[in-house]
């Protein structure tokens, strides 16, 4: 599952919005230029006083002329990430004192933001100058760590013109719940302008174990069954991996999936590719937070910024950088610089990073332009009509991805647009369109996630996306999306029910494999009053299909006859009719079908059920009367039965409407 993130990242980095937030090899001098931070250490101290002539800089092996060397002149934006997942409850006063010391290190033009990391990323305070910051409010540790996501959130921030960005992450390196994985962080770092320094913290194993055990009890959905083929599985007489690392010795049958791809080497590679480094605890004489930070910050402040205009190299693609110091005695110097930078083929040539949408020649197709234009005016009917004119939907999506966010100042607007674009493509009759739409939704779902705790917009996003996807009856193909939503919002009952529904969709045809597991999911969902009625209804229909008619009747009986949801009321009676037919109780079936018709007079399926039941009973006048009524029916409301297999799709209009409102 995590491997997919790399694809997502590659896609994300091709969009203008994220390109702004990642790699900026240009500065405003009228021509493309590249800035490179270079740290030169002599022993344990930064080496000062070097000039342009002292450096040798190769871009893809071609020596470049360095235009400018800046030292200590550019203000620094600092993102400080504190992994508290293996900590006891943070001591507010102690951290506040450390932050005061850190702010004292900053220059007057420098800025600082602080995030704490456990199960979620908490922004303690946003990027701001060294003025009084708000009181530090410690949060109880969730026990899990999303350090990868936190690093991504920090590294994706755009580096403002004439400023530098330093990311310092204090962590023991264990990530358990991030959406992104270590390879994704490595790839992202290569394209980020920020310098990443990772300070390894030594966590107390007992504290981490306690935190994780506590979290495991609170959120069992975040634990997964052990993988028998896992090469890390213990041999005879060996302790299991997670027992050694976390103390979770008694639960080998379930373990934290992220331990399967813990990759400290990749994190180190990520840091070094930005010109940063990994600092072992022993490197510092003083392990106070402020002391550690001072050491990293001083090194960074004293680094050089080399600026040059690339010559004799292709503009686009990956550029490998090599930086050396040519001055006398340089062999003993330690030189750190980023390993390279990338310019996407699709990136605009203009250094002002204007989205393609705003470019004077407006290079997007007429179809996409008209869709966006209509969408911009909130004329959704016109947008839908414009989309219908797209013959090659996959090409349209690719064009959208390349052009980037039409609303650069409002990422939420783009998120809604993505859902609606994907929802249209998912229902196209040709497989390539459906595939492109599915990819778009899956990839973008990684990006809508807020860096902090899940918020209402993210919840609405997942709900709209799930309702749309369920409409295509994808079965297990929708599980990654639903499971991600469940993890982000474990208390959202509709996501819990959605999990059961897509499982049911997966096995909707005989022989109904895995029916018991799906029934268990429905049973679990039925414990929540908000969704109990639908869970019982769907459970009943599955029981009917697997031949357990009496249990199906029992499940239908649990539903209240005065269920407020009219669709569920109708389906309850319709299914009761089917169950009674299967029990050869034709009179009872006819009664149930009549009740269904009474609750939904325009529904056709119940009339067909009544007609065939009466016909089989030998009531020919009754059957023929029902048949004449069916013949006389014209277009009317959608029979809820026709949408039964589309699960939550019936909520899609309301879900997308709510998402639209939330994006404004």
């Amino acid at each position: 599952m995590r491997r997919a993130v790399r694809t997502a990242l590659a896609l994300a980095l091709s969009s203008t919005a994220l390109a702004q937030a990642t790699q900026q090899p240009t500065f405003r001098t009228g021509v493309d230029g590249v800035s490179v931070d270079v740290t030169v250490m002599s022993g344990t101290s930064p080496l000062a006083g070097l000039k342009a002539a002292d450096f040798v800089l190769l871009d893809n092996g071609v020596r470049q002329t360095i235009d400018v060397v800046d030292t200590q002149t550019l203000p620094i934006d600092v993102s400080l990430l504190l992994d508290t997942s293996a900590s006891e409850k943070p001591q507010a006063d102690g951290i506040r004192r450390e932050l005061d010391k850190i702010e004292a290190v900053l220059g007057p033009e420098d800025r600082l933001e602080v995030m704490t990391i456990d199960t979620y990323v908490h922004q303690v305070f946003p990027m701001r100058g060294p003025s009084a910051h708000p009181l530090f409010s410690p949060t109880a540790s969730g026990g899990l760590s999303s350090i990868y996501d936190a690093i991504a959130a920090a590294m994706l921030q755009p580096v403002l013109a004439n400023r530098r960005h330093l990311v310092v992450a204090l962590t023991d390196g264990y990530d358990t719940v991030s959406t992104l994985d270590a390879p994704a962080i490595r790839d992202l770092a290569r394209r980020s302008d920020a310098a990443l320094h990772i300070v390894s913290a030594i966590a107390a194993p007992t504290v981490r174990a306690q935190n994780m055990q506590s979290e495991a009890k609170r959120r069992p959905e975040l634990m997964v069954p052990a993988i028998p083929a896992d090469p890390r599985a213990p041999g005879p007489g060996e302790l299991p991996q997670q027992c050694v690392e976390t103390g979770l010795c008694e639960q080998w049958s379930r373990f934290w999936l992220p331990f399967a791809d813990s990759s400290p080497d990749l994190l180190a590679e990520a840091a070094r590719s930005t010109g940063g480094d990994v600092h072992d605890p022993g490197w510092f004489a003083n392990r106070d937070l402020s002391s550690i930070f001072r050491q990293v910050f001083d090194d960074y402040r004293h680094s050089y910024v080399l600026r040059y205009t690339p010559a004799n190299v292709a503009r686009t693609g990956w550029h490998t950088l090599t930086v050396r110091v040519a001055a006398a005695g340089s062999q003993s110097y330690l030189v750190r610089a980023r390993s390279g930078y990338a310019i996407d083929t699709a990136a605009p040539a203009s250094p002002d990073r204007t989205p393609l949408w705003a470019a004077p020649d407006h290079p997007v197709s007429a179809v996409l332009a008209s869709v966006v234009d209509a969408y911009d005016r909130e004329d959704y009917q016109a947008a839908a009509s414009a989309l219908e004119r797209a013959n090659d939907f996959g090409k349209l999506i690719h064009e959208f991805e390349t052009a980037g966010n039409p609303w650069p100042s409002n990422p939420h607007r783009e998120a809604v647009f993505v859902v609606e674009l994907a929802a249209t493509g998912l229902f196209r009759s040709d497989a390539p369109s459906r595939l492109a739409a599915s990819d778009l939704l899956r990839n973008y779902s990684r990006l809508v996630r807020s860096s902090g705790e899940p918020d209402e917009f993210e919840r609405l996003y997942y709900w709209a996306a799930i309702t749309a996807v369920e409409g295509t009856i994808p079965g297990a193909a929708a599980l990654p999306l639903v499971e991600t939503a469940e993890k982000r919002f474990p208390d959202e009952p509709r996501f819990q029910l959605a999990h059961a529904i897509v499982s049911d969709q997966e096995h909707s045809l005989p022989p109904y494999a895995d029916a018991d597991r799906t029934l268990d999911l429905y049973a679990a969902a039925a414990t929540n009053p908000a969704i109990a009625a639908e869970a019982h209804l769907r459970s009943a229909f599955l029981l009917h299909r697997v031949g357990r008619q009496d249990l199906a009747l029992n499940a239908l009986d649990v539903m209240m006859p005065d269920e407020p949801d009219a669709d569920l009321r109708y389906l309850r009676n319709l299914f009761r009719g089917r169950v009674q037919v299967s029990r050869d109780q034709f009179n009872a079936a006819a009664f149930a079908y009549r009740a269904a018709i009474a609750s939904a007079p325009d529904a056709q399926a119940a009339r067909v059920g009544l007609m065939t039941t009466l016909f089989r009973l030998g009531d020919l006048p009754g059957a023929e009367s029902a048949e004449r009524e069916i013949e006389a029916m014209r277009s009317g409301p959608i029979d809820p039965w026709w949408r039964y297999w589309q699960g939550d799709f019936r909520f899609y209009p309301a879900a997308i409407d709510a998402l639209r409102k939330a994006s404004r």
Partner: protein
Amino acid sequence: MVPFVRSTIALAAAALLAAASAARQQPVFRSGVDVVSVDVSVRAGNSPLQGLRAEDFDLRDNDVAQTINDISYETQPIDATIALDVSQSVNGTVLDGMRKAVEALMGDLGPGDRLKLFSFNERIVRAVDYTSDAKAASAAIKSAAGFGGTSILDAMAVALVGAHELDRRQLLVVFSDGRDSTSISERDGLLDVARRSHAAADVVLSARSMTGDLRDFYEAVAKETGGLVMPVVPGSDVSKAFRTVLSDFRSSYVLHFTPQGVERSGYHTLTVAVRRSGHLDVRARRGYFGG
């Protein structure tokens, strides 16, 4: 159930038409005496065998030989009910082929014959009630657009129950890709309806859907009623399949008998044979329900 979103089917006409004969049955109740009518198709090779008389047939009701009171050939008027799949899997080319097929079939109807037209996706719509107006039927198909799920079982049930006029021969022709997605009817239920119906059900199916249990099921429905399943392959002419169905139905014998020596109620198994030498293909419905 299957997803609504399916790959578009390609359609064509009947290239695989078997040298078929079909037999049909209509239990008719007249003048206080129960009379059963049975359509019997007799073919020698690809051609219908004409000129048979009542004594040429061996008809058994629950294995009891019956006396045939009357026999008719191409004299009774026909009610043809056409049910056309206009679900998402049916694209414009197929719709155009269906329109031409219905026009061709109407051109072959006799002066007393009538046509009723249903279209169905998830919703069943009677597009044209019994008529001999070819233009009305054609216009109804032209206005159809392929979208939505497929309620083929429900559509067949409605058409079979609706084919109840006893003084006319009832033919049902269903054209579909065969994959049901939204019917409330179940297969067992539809088979029972077919046994009880007066109509002969001919099912014209896309060849690509003629696989496994799906083909077995539609063949079971057709056999119950004395009908046929006709697969069509991409690029062939649907009109030819429709005209063949009608021609085969029209050239069937209708045997009338008053059941003797059997219980009136319950299901009656029918067997029909022809007392002629040589290989003949004789088809009749497999039974009927007594009053």
